Structure formats: structure tokens, C-alpha cells
């Protein structure tokens, strides 16, 4: 009787081994798989990472998601064909291991990796890619992604050549065509086709969906979701990257997002050690955490300027409430805008608003965009005298009390609207107000809730000036077409122009169009530099400052390489590992 | 120092044998908005066991304040400046709060005007029984029995219905009887009845007064009966003390005071009540009328001299100085210069 329990135990042990074997880290890469070999240092497997999210993800559906949190999670669950390396800002092969461009620049031939599997273990091939693009491009689905896949007014055409080859056709040459594929998640046809055929794709993969029904090619897959609290991802055992030693990535066992609705609470939880990485710290919290840095178990990093540019702009719309027409005469005068620009103390702004952790801007392209920034644009220091000279040349005068008067002798005063929820922009507006006092301009700062601001800028055009920020999603100028083209829907200062209303806007339109179809980077850079020069000269938007990207991570996290592009910290999540190897 | 305490101690003893209750030189002040006035000014009187003493006077003359000061039931703005309440040899004003609680309701109890003393959100039976249980160590059952017997003795026959009712479900007479039951259930030796018949109809009033008479006869309970109505006192009180503006102006056996009032105030008071037809006529014709010309003096502005003199028909020059309470005809005491000569 005695040995039996022992035997039973042994049998159980073996069974456990068998059961846990394939899904654990030991799964050897099969020779049939085309894997991506990471050239990062080899790490240790295991461990969980906890990261905070500012708001709860709304959906896990890559087709419909628009909000930042959802996209951040989806990025961990899915992969794209060609990826922009967040660090080098250049494209690199992802699921497409190589691609060729036809001589006329209209056809791309993408070769897919062989033998890949989705995170549920099902096989991947060209059909999934074709299905994915069919979904994204379907007009009835209304995927926000669709717009990015339209080149020169026509959607791209994706065709299957064979099981692992895809062809993509463009209607006209497009300089940034490779970059189009970034973040376009490849969907598993097997799981989503039924929903698509029923016309219910937009409701698929909600947060309530059971984890086994969600699969992707990303480094992680969904494990559990607790409404309002957290979302846990687990390692995808079929991920297509390996390290130099041949270990399958990712190293981490689990990645947990906890929802923390408030920036300060986020900082506090990081400080308390509840979370392991903090993504976008503001400068104020950075200064607080800095004091704990030496004693604490974490380190902070200021990785320099971000792509976000904050700017002041005047209402130059042609359709606007009648009471603003009088003031628009000033705003339309480039000299007025230049004077305002000259009177703004950008360096002080960086010091006050960002505690020095930011960059003053004279062009919308921030230094973070090292490929495209035009370094020749002058950075004139604040000069009230010069500003006054410009104003005098534009026919403005001052009365005895130092109030600036226009040609019809009415005092120059205007209101800057800004989003109340963004403390930094409120601060900028307040500083502008103080700066322009020196020019005799009375400025009112009105902080409204964000949607009211958007409504005034985009809908009613009932505002005089506004401080706004735009964060470029990509470094390539192609991403900014909608901002600089006079017909673009983010051409904030003058929306919905059928034709450019000024010669310089016409020139920008021409330059932007030209750079888009130019294929040589040098040529494109020259064209885009000219756009930046015109913008700096005409000052339709008066660029103010860009915050630095401030991040923090526990010391145990290795391979931590924050980047200027979104997502700053977790973009290389497959390569992150813990020096202790265990749980934090 | 030591001498004086010794003398007071000896006096205490003599007093305690001398009478059942003695009030000595009681002075109570109210303080309102930083001004103070004397609601009771140097009042002294005594009561024997089983005696019913009536306190008579218009409202605001200090009757209630005098009586309630015994149990320290005055509002926070009032302060006993001087005086003593010797009750069965103890000065009530010097008792601790705990000692006083044992006296209240058990030895000295109060029947409040109207039925405002009844809690509107408690069953009446509970309110009676809890008084008993607060002082006597009785089971609920025993206490209920006692309550039932006192209810019946007061003419509240349906004990179950009435004791389960809330005050607002009962008639004014019933409520008043319950208030009396509360006061009497512990068989106290002194009951202060503050206008017990003020808000009940004539028949009930008579019944209530009879009740009190019975109590006195059965248990030798003493009563201080406060009223503004000489008629209420007429049938019941052994002795009457007439107060005006915080002072005793006349006191003596009820029969004598009512039949032969000495003080002009007492005379006027009796005159008004006896002249009922005239009063009724005035009410019918909705005329303003006053029992006595003028009104009680402003308590903040008491002038020296006889306090009634401004309203007195028989005012004399001497009335500008303070009259003393003098004995008249060996039975009554009166505070008026008319009688000082005697």
C-alpha cells in the first residue's frame, strides 16, 4: 500500500508538466517559423509588470477604438505589418518581413512571416491580412483607421498574391506609404469574420468579451478584466520575436494595467511602488518624485522634447460671429501676429509651466522630430521694443495710459480661450496675458471645459484667440497634411476654406502636396523646411513650447528605453525584463 | 467664617424641625442680551405638610420661576442669586445634580401647565411608568399595576387604550390627568402644580381639583398651586400667596385673602374675576380690555418704591419708597403703606 501515493504524486507531477509544458517559456521556436530576432541584450523570463492607465480602455476592438487608453492596450495585443521603431523613428519589418516597391512607386509587395500563430494558437496567413484591410476599408464599418489608409482620395487596394505574399496598390506615389501600416492591427479572420458578416463588427471585442475570443499577433493576450479596476494581459506564447539566445519573447509573464483616473494619483501610486512604470509625468510631479529618486527603488528620466506643440492662434475664419469682424482686422495682419509672437517670453514659459523641463518653440516641429526639424529657423528672444516697432509700422498707436489703439482708435483687447482641464495651457495663456500687457494689449483668459473649447473652434467659430496643443502621432510630415493644408480639418485658424485665402497658405498647400508625392527624403525635407519657414514668418499659429517626456521606472526593469513617439515606455514591452527575474 | 457656618448649621436643624418646607429670601435673576432683571426678589414663605398653598398673580410676576427654582428647572439664562429652599431639612438648592434627580418626581414633583410636559412621540403609559421606574426598583409588571391604579383613581378608566395612546390622540382633560398621574405616581410629599386647569374646560377643571384634594387627604401631599385665577384657588387652597413683579405682596389664609383682600393689587385682581359679566361682555364685543389698568412693570426698569404704585388707584406720596411686608390682624401679611401704620 505504501508506495502508491508516491506513485500517484509522480503521475500528477508528470501530468502537470505535460499540461504546462507547451504554454510555458520553454516552447522552442519551430524551424518553420520566420521569427524576428531582437538585437537587444538577452534578458530573464518571468515577472509581472503593473502600469497605470489614466482612463479605462473603452474597447479592445482595433477597428473602432479611438481613445488613447484603448489604443495603448490594443497595441500590446496586436501587431502591424510594418512598424515604426519608436526609438529610431524609422520603419522596420514586423509581420511583413520584407517589402519591395515597384519602380513607379504605386505597388508594394509585402512578404509575410511564415508559420506565425495568433495568441489563441490558430495559424496566420495572408487571408487574415486581406480580411483586416477589408474591414478597415469598409465604408459601413466607419473605422477611424480608414482615413489613414486613403491616399490621394482613394483607398489603398490590398490583394493576396499567395499564402504569405500581399500586394498593396496606391493610386498615386506616396512618400510615407510604409508608415501607413504602422498600428494597423492585423485581425484574426477566424474570430471576427462571423461578426463582420452580421454587420456587428463594431460591437465585437468589447471589454466584456471572454479572453479566449480575443486573439492577436501582439506580445500579450487578454487574461482578465475587472471593470473600473484593472486589466491583466498575459504573455502570448506564440509571439513572433525571439532574442539573440533564441528565447521567445516577451520575457514578462503578465502585464497589468490599473486604472487611475488622475495624474497626481498616478504619480502617488508610482511613488508608493504600486506601479512599476509611469508613462507621462508632468513636470510638477516629476519634481516631487525626484526627491525620492535616490532613496527610492526607481529612477526618473527626462528624455527630452516630445512631439506635442502648444500654440496660440487667432480666429482667422471667414465665417464668424459679426461682433468679431472688427477684431479680425488686427488678427489678419501678419505684423500684429508677429508682434504678439515677439512679445511672448517663451523661455520664461518653459521655466514656469514646465519647470524648465520643456523646449521653447518657434516652429511646430519640435526637436524631438530629429528627422524633420528645421534648425535654421530663427529663435528671436522676447523683445517688447521690436514688437512695438512692428506694431507702429502696422499703424497701431498708444494712448496716454499706454493702451494700444488701432487705426480707428479703439483699444486692442482680446480673449484667449483654453481648456480648463489642462493646467499647463491655462498657465501659458495667463503668461501671455501678462506679457502682452507690456504692449498695452488687454487680454482676458477664459478657461472653458475642453468640449466647449472644441465647439467654439470647430463649430461656432465664436472665439478670438485660443491656446491649443497638438501631439503629432508620427514624425513624418504626411501625418500633418490635415493641419497645414488649407482644406484640412485641423487647419484650426481658418477652417473649411474651399480655396486658400492667402498667397502663403496657397504656397503651403503646394509645398505639402509636393512633398507627399516626392520620393527622395532630401527633397521632401527641403519642401517641408520651407513650410516651417512660412509658418514661422506668417505666424498663423504662434508656437509656444513643448513639454519634455518624463518617465519613471523601477530600477529592476531592464532594457527600459523610453522614446519620443507614443507609447513612450511600453513600445518595446517584449524586450523588457526584470533583473530579479521574479515578481516585483 | 467658622462662626457663621456654625450658626447656619444650627439654624438648619431648627428650621428642619420647625417646618416641612421653607423658602427663604429667594432671589432669581434672568439675563437676556447682557441685561439682567430680577424675576423673583426676596421671596420667603413656608408650607406645612399636607397644606395647599396657592400662588396667585398675573403672568410674569414670578410665580412659576419661584416654584421651579426649587428643582433647579429654570432655563440656562436664570440664576438663583440668593435664597434657600429648605425641604425636609435639606436645602434643595445645594444638592448635587444626582441627589436632585432623586428628589425630582419622587419627593417633589411638578404638574405642568397644559399638557406640554407630555412627550408627543411617546405613549402616555410609558411616560407615567418611566417616572415610577426611575425612582422605585419595580418590575414593569408591578409598575403597570401601580399606573393602572393611579389612572383609575384619576378617572382614567380604559387603562389599556389610554396608556397605549399618544398624547395627541387624547382629550385635553385626559392629558392633564396623565400629567397629574406622572406627578403623583411616586407619592411625593410636595407637588408643584403650574396652572393645572388653565387649558381644560370647567368640568374637567373641577374634577382635577377634586382629584388633588383627594390626594392631599389620602396621602398628606402638600401642593403649591400656581394660578392667575383666584377662583381656582378658592375651593382648594389653604393659604394664598399673592405675588406682584417678583415680590410677595400679600399672604394669608385663603378665606381671609379672598374675602378680605388687603393689598390694592389683590383687591383689583379679585374685582376683575368677580366681575365676570363685564369681562364676558368685553370679549363678546371684541374690545380690548384689561383687568387692571396699566400693565405689569417692565422687569428691566423697576423703579424704587412700591411696584404696584403706578397702577394703584390709592397711590400715596410715600409709595415712592419701598414698603415692607407687614403682618396685619395677626393672620395676613401685606406689603402696602396703607397697613404699615398699624
Amino acid at each position: 500500500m505504501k508506495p502508491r501515493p508516491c506513485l500517484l504524486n509522480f503521475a500528477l507531477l508528470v501530468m502537470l508538466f505535460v499540461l504546462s509544458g507547451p504554454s510555458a517559456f520553454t516552447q522552442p521556436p519551430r524551424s518553420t517559423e520566420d521569427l524576428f530576432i531582437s538585437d537587444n541584450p538577452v534578458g530573464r523570463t518571468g515577472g509581472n509588470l503593473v502600469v497605470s492607465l489614466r482612463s479605462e480602455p473603452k474597447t479592445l476592438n482595433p477597428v473602432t477604438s479611438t481613445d488613447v487608453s484603448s489604443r495603448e492596450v490594443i497595441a500590446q495585443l496586436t501587431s502591424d505589418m510594418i512598424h515604426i521603431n519608436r526609438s529610431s523613428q524609422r520603419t522596420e519589418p514586423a509581420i511583413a518581413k520584407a517589402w519591395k516597391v515597384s519602380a513607379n512607386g504605386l505597388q508594394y509587395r509585402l512578404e509575410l512571416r511564415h508559420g506565425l500563430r495568433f495568441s489563441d494558437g490558430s495559424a496566420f496567413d495572408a487571408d487574415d491580412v486581406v480580411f483586416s484591410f477589408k474591414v478597415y476599408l469598409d465604408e459601413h464599418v466607419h473605422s477611424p483607421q480608414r482615413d489613414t489608409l486613403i491616399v490621394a482620395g482613394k483607398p489603398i487596394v490590398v490583394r493576396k498574391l499567395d499564402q504569405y505574399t500581399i500586394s498593396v496598390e496606391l493610386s498615386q506615389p506616396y512618400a510615407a506609404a510604409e508608415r501607413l501600416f504602422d498600428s494597423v492591427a492585423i485581425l484574426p479572420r477566424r474570430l471576427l469574420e462571423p461578426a463582420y458578416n452580421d454587420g456587428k463588427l463594431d460591437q465585437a471585442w468589447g471589454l466584456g468579451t471572454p479572453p479566449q475570443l480575443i486573439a492577436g499577433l501582439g506580445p500579450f493576450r487578454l487574461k482578465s478584466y475587472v471593470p473600473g479596476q484593472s486589466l491583466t494581459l498575459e504573455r502570448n506564447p506564440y509571439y513572433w520575436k525571439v532574442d539573440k539566445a533564441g528565447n521567445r519573447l516577451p520575457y514578462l509573464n503578465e502585464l497589468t494595467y490599473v486604472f487611475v483616473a488622475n495624474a497626481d494619483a498616478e504619480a502617488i501610486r508610482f511613488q508608493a511602488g504600486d506601479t512599476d512604470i509611469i508613462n507621462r509625468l508632468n513636470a510638477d510631479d516629476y519634481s516631487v518624485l525626484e526627491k525620492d529618486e535616490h532613496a527610492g527603488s526607481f529612477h526618473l528620466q527626462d528624455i527630452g522634447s516630445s512631439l506635442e506643440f502648444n500654440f496660440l492662434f487667432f480666429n482667422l475664419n471667414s465665417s464668424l460671429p459679426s461682433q468679431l469682424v472688427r477684431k479680425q482686422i488686427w488678427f489678419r495682419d501678419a505684423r500684429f501676429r508677429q508682434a504678439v509672437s515677439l512679445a511672448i517670453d517663451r523661455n520664461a514659459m518653459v521655466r514656469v509651466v514646465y519647470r524648465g523641463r520643456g523646449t521653447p518653440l518657434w516652429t511646430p516641429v519640435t526637436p524631438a522630430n530629429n528627422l524633420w526639424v528645421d534648425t535654421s529657423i530663427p529663435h528671436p528672444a522676447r523683445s517688447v521694443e521690436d514688437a512695438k516697432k512692428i506694431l507702429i509700422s502696422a499703424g497701431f498707436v498708444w494712448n496716454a495710459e499706454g493702451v494700444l489703439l488701432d487705426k480707428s482708435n479703439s483699444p486692442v483687447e482680446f480673449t484667449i480661450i483654453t481648456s480648463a482641464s489642462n493646467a499647463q495651457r491655462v498657465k501659458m495663456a495667463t503668461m501671455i496675458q501678462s506679457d502682452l500687457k507690456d504692449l498695452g494689449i488687454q487680454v482676458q483668459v477664459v478657461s472653458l471645459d475642453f468640449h466647449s473649447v472644441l465647439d467654439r473652434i470647430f463649430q461656432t467659430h465664436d472665439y478670438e484667440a485660443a491656446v491649443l496643443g497638438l501631439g503629432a502621432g508620427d514624425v513624418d510630415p504626411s501625418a500633418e497634411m490635415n493641419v497645414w493644408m488649407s482644406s484640412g480639418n485641423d487647419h484650426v485658424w481658418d477652417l473649411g476654406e474651399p480655396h486658400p485665402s492667402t498667397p502663403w497658405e496657397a504656397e503651403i498647400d503646394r509645398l505639402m502636396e509636393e512633398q507627399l508625392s516626392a520620393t527622395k527624403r532630401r527633397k521632401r525635407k527641403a519642401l517641408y523646411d520651407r513650410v516651417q519657414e512660412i509658418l514661422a514668418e506668417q505666424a498663423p499659429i504662434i508656437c509656444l513650447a513643448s513639454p519634455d517626456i518624463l518617465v519613471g521606472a523601477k530600477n529592476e526593469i531592464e532594457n527600459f528605453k523610453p522614446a519620443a513617439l507614443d507609447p513612450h515606455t511600453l513600445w518595446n514591452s517584449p524586450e523588457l525584463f526584470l533583473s530579479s527575474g521574479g515578481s516585483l | 467664617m467658622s462662626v457663621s457656618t456654625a450658626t447656619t448649621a444650627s439654624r438648619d436643624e431648627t428650621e428642619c424641625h420647625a417646618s416641612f418646607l421653607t423658602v427663604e429670601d429667594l432671589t432669581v435673576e434672568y439675563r437676556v442680551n447682557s441685561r439682567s432683571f430680577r424675576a423673583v426678589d426676596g421671596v420667603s414663605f413656608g408650607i406645612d405638610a399636607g397644606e395647599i398653598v396657592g400662588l396667585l398673580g398675573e403672568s410674569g410676576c414670578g410665580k412659576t420661576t419661584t416654584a421651579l427654582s426649587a428643582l433647579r428647572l429654570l432655563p440656562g439664562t436664570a440664576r438663583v442669586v440668593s435664597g434657600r429652599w429648605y425641604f425636609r431639612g435639606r436645602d434643595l438648592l445645594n444638592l448635587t445634580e444626582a441627589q436632585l434627580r432623586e428628589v425630582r418626581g419622587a419627593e417633589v414633583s411638578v404638574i405642568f401647565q397644559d399638557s406640554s410636559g407630555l412627550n408627543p412621540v411617546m405613549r402616555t403609559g410609558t411616560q407615567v411608568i418611566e417616572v415610577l421606574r426611575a425612582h422605585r426598583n419595580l418590575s414593569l409588571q408591578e409598575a403597570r399595576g401601580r399606573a393602572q391604579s393611579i389612572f383609575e383613581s384619576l378617572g382614567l378608566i380604559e387603562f389599556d387604550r389610554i396608556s397605549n395612546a399618544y398624547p395627541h390622540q387624547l382629550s385635553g382633560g385626559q392629558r392633564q390627568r396623565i400629567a397629574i398621574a406622572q406627578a403623583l405616581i411616586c407619592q411625593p410629599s410636595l407637588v408643584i402644580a403650574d396652572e393645572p386647569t388653565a387649558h381644560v374646560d370647567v368640568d374637567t377643571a373641577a374634577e382635577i381639583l377634586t382629584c388633588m384634594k383627594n390626594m392631599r387627604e389620602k396621602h398628606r401631599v402638600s401642593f403649591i398651586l400656581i394660578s392667575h385665577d383666584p377662583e381656582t384657588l378658592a375651593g382648594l387652597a389653604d393659604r394664598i400667596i399673592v405675588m406682584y413683579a417678583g415680590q410677595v405682596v400679600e399672604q394669608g389664609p385663603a378665606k381671609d385673602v379672598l374675602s378680605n383682600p388687603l393689598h390694592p393689587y389683590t383687591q383689583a385682581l379679585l374685582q376683575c374675576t368677580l366681575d365676570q359679566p363685564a369681562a364676558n361682555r368685553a370679549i363678546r364685543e371684541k374690545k380690548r380690555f384689561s383687568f387692571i389698568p396699566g400693565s405689569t412693570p417692565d422687569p428691566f426698569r423697576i423703579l424704587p418704591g412700591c411696584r404696584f404704585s403706578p397702577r394703584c388707584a390709592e397711590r400715596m406720596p410715600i409709595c415712592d419708597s419701598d414698603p415692607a411686608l407687614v403682618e396685619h390682624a395677626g393672620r395676613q401679611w401685606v406689603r402696602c403703606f396703607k397697613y404699615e401704620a398699624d
Partner: protein
Amino acid sequence: MKLNRTIMVLLLAAGALHIFALCAGFLAPYDFAQQNRDLLYVPPSRLHFNDPQGRWHLRPAICGLAELPNSPGTYAEDRSRCLPVRFLVRGSEYKFLGIFHCSRHLFGVDPPARMFLLGSDGYGRDVLSRLLYGGQLSLFCGSLATILSLSIGVLLGVSAGYYGGWFDAVVMRCAELFLALPWIYLLLAIRAFLPLHISAGRMFFLLFAVIGFVGWARPARLIRGVALSGKERGYLLAARGFGGSDLYLMKRHLLPQASSILVTQAGLLAPQYILAEVTLSFLGLGVGEPVPSWGNMLATLLQYDVLVSYWWMWAPGLLLIPVFLVYHALGNALQESADCRVYSQ
């Protein structure tokens, strides 16, 4: 006697507060919007009564500040550059009591040096000056709004409790409606319909009207409850029997009963309303930067770094405590004195 003196003292204290706020221009050394961008979050200036040589002076002096080279944001006193504090100095221009142009300030130092008796904020503005100016808006808006919403609440609450029936039902359902509605949206809508630039006076009026108008429901419900139970009391029935008019009965009998609730509510609402202005300014209905109010000054405390690192930024919060205490104590004292009057009858 004691009570009345308490009321007097409290009234004096409350009055002094309001007067301080009214004379903010004179008492404050600087303009509330004046920024010193090199002097961010400077801790309160130390007043020195002895000079570097160790001699004592009656006139206090302020020492210049220098940013420490290695750690930006920290400042050290430069004892070699000391400036005496002067009284009745010329400084920025302001309108005394809102009428007279004036440029004398109670105290100050010679520019370019700065004295920050309560430190400076994130723009390098003088916290003391902002605190004084901020009181103008907060104190008056808070008390006016309290009066407004309590008046509406009393009016509707007492009459609903007194008349009962359909009137009561309508008023109370309205109150519930008011308590349940998402006001934030109406306020957003109101803001959208108003012109962008609103003069300070109109904004002030708007602020207190909005705060006061929205807040009536709570006191109304509480007061109605009291009125309802008071209605059944004997003396009220008696007074009605004597032919007292409805108005008279409500005024003389129901209102005094509700007074304790009223005073309690007033004591609670005034502080809440002072703080409510922050929410409104978020929606663009309050005063925006750079105009100070105690509400928006307190709101800066919500930034984690300010909360942790700059203790002097707690000043508005610490100031609110005695202010609220004065309000409360005044309420209590008034209530007590009302009680006294009842007894003395």
C-alpha cells in the same frame, strides 16, 4: 451680558474680514496679477530685526533672494542685500474701494526687491496680495449666494410645509428635480450662450446668482420638514384660531422654529459656496486667471507637488478655518440669543 459681547466680538471679526477684503488694494503690497518669473514658489520672506552686523532695528528688513545654482527652484537669502520694509510706499496702481485711483500701499520694499510675506506662487505672484484680493470675491459671493438660496429655500420650504396639499407636492417634486438634475450641463450651456468676455461685475453677479439659485432645494426640504411638524403644534392652531393671517403665522411661529435649521444651514452653505466657485470657474463661469479667489487659490493645492512641497500655499486653506469658525460661532451665538428672547417672554 456675555452672549451679547460674544456677538459683538464675532460681528467685529466678520466685519474686519470684509473690510480687509474691501481694502485689499491698500493692504496688499502688490498687484494680484504681477508675475515674478524668476521667483517661483519662494517661501515666505523672513523679517529681520537685526542687520548682518548684529545691530537691532525697530524697522524690519527683508533680504534679497538668490536661486541656488545647483538646485533650481530653491532660494537662499542674501544677507548682504537687506532692504528695510517701508510703510505707505508707492507701488502699483489700484482703485481704493473700487472708486479712487491710488498707488499707496500699506507696506512694501523698494523695487526691484520683493517681499513675499506669505511666499509666492507658481507664477511668482505674491500670495498675501492674492489672498487679500481673493477675499473680495469669495466672501461676498459666498455670503450673498447663501442669503439667496436660503431665502428661496425658506420661502418655498415654509409655505410648502404650511399650506401642504398640492402646493407642497409641487414644490417638493421641484426640489427633488433640482437635486437630481445634471447642473453641470446647464451651466455649460449657459456659458455657451453668454458672450466670451464678461465684465468682472457681471461675472460676480452671475456667480452668486447661479450658486444661490441652484442651492435652494436642500434647505427648502429641511425647513419644510420643520414647518410640517410645527404646523400641528397647539399654539399655532390657537394662533390661527385667533385669526392670525397666514403670513403672520408663518413669520411669527414657523420661521422661528426653523431658525436653528436655518442658521445651521447658513453656517454650512457659506463655506461650500466659497468653494463652489472653483467648479464654476472650471466651466468658464467663475473668475478665470489671473483674478484670485480663495476657491481657485485652494485649487492649486490639488496639484500634488504644491500639496507636498510648498507649505505656504496652504495659506488660503488655513485662512478659511478661522473664517468659517467665525461664521459658525456667529450663527450659534445668534441662535442662542434668539432662544433667550423666547425664554424671556
